[in-house]
């Protein structure tokens, strides 16, 4: 695995003698998109607030790019770009003035860089207008722009797709993956849309009652999962496939067959079945989704 950009070491937060976050340890790596999942009130935002210095941890430390946030605040925070909860910007100013404002707070951000970011987030035509005229999706884009201005090593996005339309979400996802891979940025995304996290992230951490209870790698497309083919002749289908592909375990049911293969292999299997005259009515992936696992782990509590 690539080198770690962010390390949370025994991070704890007590508010009025109640422990909100329990000794959190977490490493985030270069080029990785990490998903942060948890029900309402689990401590996601509190953890993020501690990572950006809005809240002081009761114990523990946040190390970003090798320096400690608590000991060397200005140097450490200059490597972080973030949206915490809603992107609250100065709505009485234009989008461009907002970006000028934030660019003055970092070193060496040129006018060209500002324009580049505006183009990247797709706000070019409306950037001169006051933010109060923006839709939630446009504010979200401007929020992303201010987080990217100074080319951070670590990007924190709290509920980033909130207010984006489906096309916008897809575009956003592609963009995130691109900057993670090409610029080696480590990205932390918190979202209540589990299906999205699943599509966007390499790893997912599940937090509940202030404890990080599980970290898992999101399954790749080459990974084998369980697929069900609904067919007219299950026995025949089983025979055909066993002949065509060696070492595949196939379970024949009354109306269907089930087998463990990767997503890439599905079309080939289907082709063989069709060529051999098996009538295929449907193909379904019966892998348990992250959502099921998430609900299992958190005991089915309401997801924020």
């Amino acid at each position, binding site marked *: 695995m690539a080198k770690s950009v962010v390390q949370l070491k025994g991070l704890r937060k007590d508010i009025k003698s109640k422990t909100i976050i329990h000794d959190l340890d977490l490493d985030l790596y270069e080029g990785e998109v990490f998903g942060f999942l948890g029900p309402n009130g689990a401590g996601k935002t509190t953890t993020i607030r501690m990572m950006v210095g809005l*809240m002081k941890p009761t114990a523990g430390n946040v190390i970003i790019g090798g320096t400690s946030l608590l000991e060397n605040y200005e140097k450490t925070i200059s490597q972080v770009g973030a949206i915490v909860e*809603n*992107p609250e910007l100065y709505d009485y100013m234009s989008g461009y003035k907002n970006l000028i*404002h934030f660019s003055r*707070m970092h070193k060496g951000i040129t006018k060209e860089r500002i324009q580049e970011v505006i183009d990247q987030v797709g706000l070019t035509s409306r950037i001169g207008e006051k933010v109060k005229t923006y839709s939630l999706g446009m504010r979200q884009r401007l929020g992303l722009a201010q987080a990217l201005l100074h080319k951070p090593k670590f990007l924190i996005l709290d509920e980033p797709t909130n207010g984006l339309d489906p096309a916008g979400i897809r575009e956003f996802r592609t963009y995130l993956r691109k900057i993670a891979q090409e610029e080696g940025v480590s990205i932390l995304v918190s979202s209540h849309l589990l299906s999205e996290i699943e599509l966007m992230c390499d790893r997912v951490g599940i937090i509940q009652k202030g404890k990080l209870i599980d970290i898992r790698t999101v399954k790749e497309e080459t990974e084998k999962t369980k697929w069900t083919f609904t067919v007219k002749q299950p026995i025949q289908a089983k025979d055909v496939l066993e002949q065509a592909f060696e070492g595949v375990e196939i379970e024949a049911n009354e109306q269907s067959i089930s087998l463990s293969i990767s997503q890439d292999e599905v079309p080939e299997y289907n082709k063989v079945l069709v060529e051999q005259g098996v009538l295929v009515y449907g193909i379904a992936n019966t892998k348990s989704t992250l959502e099921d696992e998430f609900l299992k782990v958190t005991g089915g509590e309401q997801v924020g």
Partner: protein
Amino acid sequence: MVNFVNLIRNEWMKLMQRKSTWIMSIILIIAVFSIFGVLKWDYSHREESVGPNTTEQRLQQQINTYEAQKSEADPSSLDYKYAVEQIELAQYRLDEGLAPAEVGSFWHVMNTSANFFSLIVLFVIIVASGILAHEFQKGTIKLLAIRPATRTKLLYSKYVTVLLFSVAIALLLLVSSLVASLIYFPYDSYTHLTWNGESVSEWPAIFWILQSYLYAMVNVVVMGTIAFVIGALFRSSGLAIGITMFFSFATLPVMMMLRKYEWAKYILFSHVEFSMHLSQPFVDVTPLFSLMVILMYLVIFHALMYTSFKKRDIAV
């Protein structure tokens, strides 16, 4: 890491982008022009006063009045000192042929423009209350605080901006008063005189105006600081405006109530009306003593605000 000047530029930009800042400036200009207009109307309709009507006669009458007051007053009292000062100044004018600022003349009206500082205090309280509290109320403090600028720098860039705004709006008052006076009133040359206990000194008229403005600025800075500190402590602009306005209105009554006590000269209330040092001395303290007391209170307010702002979490 971040240039402090850049932070001030940001604060100034945000202040200038707010509509309320412009509304306040326009109100000030309208107030100056309309009230000076009323003054002009009033002076031109005034009945010719009965009594002496040459400058010399009026000065002589002034001397006679204060001579009478002087003879009745205890030589160690403030009234006695004040009477001596007035006699010396009037005598100097008679001897040197320097006319006093006549009511309705350019410089007399210019000097009354310092009264508009009550409006400036109000505007500065509004700006100082909101400059930090608005960031909390709108949630923009989050994106502001996660930058390579320490909280101390953020806090003081805002405070410096409040001070800059105070100076800017005072300059606006000066300029609009100059323009309004030039339009409405006849220009008369005037030399300002001061008495230091031994001799009389002459000053250009503009020094007289600037002195009134500077003295009035002390009150502005104190009220602005109180509003800023309360805004930072409670993170609510409404509360800060309310409490500071209350302070401002309570000043005179509290001062009157407590002036008979010796310890009253150590409380802030006795000194915030700093302009009193220009008119008849109100309490037995020097301007320097007032400034020291005010400074002491400001340092305490800053210490309170600084420790609170640095320590508390930002959870909006």
